[in-house]
């Protein structure tokens, strides 16, 4: 295996290029610097806006480099991919080297190594070496073991802990890769869209992103109710939509959603995002203008209700609300339809468009009807997303925090101590090696020898 690798020069070059920390530094700093661009140039706005803001020349330059959607540009994504390769190659290379350190067949204790690179602490105190050795073993606990130094045959104490903490950094690196994979899964197989649903209506198609692309869901969402609550000072305190999921015309689930409390159905998550208002379908305040007296009478009428008009003008029945009403080829928009039955003569169907208050005057009847005040109903604005990569990303999150904690705050510590008699007293020579936090190790060794001295 090793032979193949060394004989294959190009392969070796590639591996050493991708395992270098220099590349990491270059990539991380490049990512940091280029990321600034997308925070200075607003992303994904309409091209016309950029054109106006930057002028033609810069508009073209920026377009070529995808600066208007830079985090999805080929060059930014390439840096991320290079980073991923860098991490994987580097971690594999290093893990191969450290594997035997982390999982040794046999712990090899070389006193020279400790003498050369360990933190040294020495002390002389009364008592016999055997007592001191006993006490040290006790202080160090289970992981301590007696050892006979190979050079001089003297007994020594060896202790170590946290060997596996060396794996922490690989956990961190793995977590970075998981985040990238999870993000990729989301962008390949997921969707993210929005839909506005008026109270009482349903929708099964969402609009994706900022463009015109649409996506049809496997089910429909009905908005049964939308409510806003306010604080005393007028700030909104809660947006709440009551939603029903409808599958094959059967309601299957009804639940309230709030901001921060979405509903998930079949992997698709529905979030409270915004709201709007529309005229109510069920009622409105109407104005009845009498042709003869010129008087205006206001009255609220529900759909289906019949009211008696003053001045002996007959009755008015509100029949229904239609979202659009065509008149001579024009769409007059939301309109109420009603029937006026005068005291004498036949009943007449009339249309009362919400937006055009003088429309019914053109009929020149004995009474003209208009909408005085449309009662509003709400439309809830929902964000609808599907992201099959989320769990991969969340696993990455957990591993990253755990891995960082282990890497930073656990360390592989080793202590080697020789204890021998010296002029009727006991002499302790102790060496410590830690793979991080030398200061901490030093303080710890000092305290250990203090405690031993008073033992």
């Amino acid at each position, binding site marked *: 295996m090793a032979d193949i690798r060394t004989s294959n020069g190009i392969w070796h070059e590639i591996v050493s290029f991708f395992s270098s920390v220099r590349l990491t530094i270059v990539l991380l700093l490049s990512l940091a610097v280029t990321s600034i661009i997308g*925070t200075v140039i607003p992303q994904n706005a309409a091209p016309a806006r950029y054109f106006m803001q930057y002028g033609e020349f810069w508009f073209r330059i920026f377009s070529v480099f995808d600066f208007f959607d830079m985090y999805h540009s080929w060059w930014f994504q390439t840096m991320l991919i290079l980073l991923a390769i860098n991490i994987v190659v580097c971690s594999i290379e290093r893990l191969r080297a450290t594997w035997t350190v982390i999982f040794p067949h046999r712990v090899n204790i070389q006193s020279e190594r400790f003498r050369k690179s360990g933190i040294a602490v020495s002390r002389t105190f009364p008592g016999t070496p055997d007592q001191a050795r006993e006490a040290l073993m006790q202080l160090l606990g289970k992981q301590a073991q007696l050892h006979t130094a190979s050079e001089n045959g003297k007994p020594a104490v060896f202790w170590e802990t946290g060997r596996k903490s060396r794996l922490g950094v690989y956990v961190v690196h793995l977590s970075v890769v998981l985040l990238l994979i999870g993000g990729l899964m989301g962008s390949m197989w997921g969707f993210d869209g929005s839909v506005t649903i008026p109270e009482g209506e349903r929708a099964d198609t969402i609009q994706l992103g900022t463009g015109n692309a649409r996506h049809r869901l496997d089910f429909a969402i009905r908005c049964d109710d939308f409510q806003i609550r306010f604080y005393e000072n007028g700030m909104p305190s809660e947006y709440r939509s009551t939603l029903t999921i409808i599958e094959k015309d059967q309601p299957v689930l009804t639940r309230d959603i709030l901001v921060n409390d979405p509903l998930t159905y079949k992997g698709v998550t529905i979030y409270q995002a915004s709201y709007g208002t529309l005229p109510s379908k069920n009622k409105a305040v109407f104005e009845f203008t009498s042709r003869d007296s010129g008087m205006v009478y206001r009255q609220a009428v529900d759909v289906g209700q019949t009211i008696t008009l003053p001045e002996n003008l007959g009755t008015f029945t509100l029949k229904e609300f239609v979202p659009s009403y065509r008149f001579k080829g024009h769409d007059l928009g939301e309109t109420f339809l009603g029937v006026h039955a005068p005291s004498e003569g036949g009943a007449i169907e009339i249309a009362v468009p919400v937006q055009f208050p003088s429309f019914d005057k053109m009929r020149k009847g004995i009474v003209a009807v208009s909408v005085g005040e449309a009662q509003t109903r709400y439309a809830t604005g929902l964000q609808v997303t599907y992201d099959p990569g989320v769990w991969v990303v969340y696993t990455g999150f957990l591993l990253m925090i755990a891995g*960082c904690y282990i*890497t930073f705050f656990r360390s592989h510590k080793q202590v080697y101590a020789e204890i021998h008699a010296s002029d009727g007293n006991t002499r302790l020579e102790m060496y410590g090696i830690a793979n991080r936090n030398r200061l901490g190790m030093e303080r710890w060794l000092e305290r250990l020898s203090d405690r031993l001295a008073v033992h």
Partner: protein
Amino acid sequence: MNSSLLLSIVTFVYAASAVLYIASWVFKKSFPAALGRWVALAGLIGNMTGIGLRWIESYQMGIGHAPLSNLYESLVFYSAVIAIVYLVIEWRYAMPTIGAFVMPLAFLAMAYASLSPNVNDRIQPLLPALKSNWLIAHVITCFIGYAAFAVSFGLSIMYVLKARHTGDAQSLIGRFPDIRVLDELNHQMIMFGFLFLTAGIITGSVWANSAWGRYWGWDPKETWSLITWFIYATLLHARFMRGWQGKRIAYLSMAGFAAVLFTYFGVNLLPGLHSYGAMGQ
């Protein structure tokens, strides 16, 4: 006494502590630093009491929530964490010259909160998007990280000054702790800060996912926190590269702290942002 008043007083207590530490360093006397430590502790107790009081006040107003929801409250929390981190370092390593470079930062954060006309200290109810435990976890973890980076910033300045210094050991800069100690402490702070910044970005991301259905949206605030993270990640790896130890790491730490400040204060100056937590119509 209400919390705003108490916290304004704390500003001056932190100022006094910073002045004492600086005096101790400049005049080579140990007494002012010993006093400065107690003053800092008093300031910290006042600071924490202020936070607790504000919490209670919000409940009395009927809009109870943890006092971690706006610029003022986060700055107040920030200076408390800086003071805690500093006092722990002093307790463990007993190097009070560091206080001359760190306590002024606790003072500045508090002074900005209490005295700047741009920072509103009224207790306000929470907008719907801000009602989330993830948000509380997010603010706490971020600011612990930022506090560690602030301390690291102070240490980096000391490191660079000391590394350039060739004069005698009794001069102003000669009395800084040993350069290796500064380096090691700085590294400790950066690791601590990086862990919490990581946790801060992650909790923020989980919050965004529960509020808007996306864990990452490249909005400028998110992006700047990531830029900060990239800088400190670079720094962690720079140790493993020849020629990158020492001063370069100190400079990177300063750049990192500049990015922290920009994430926090500067992002609002950028064009075309969505307002934080607002619900668009």
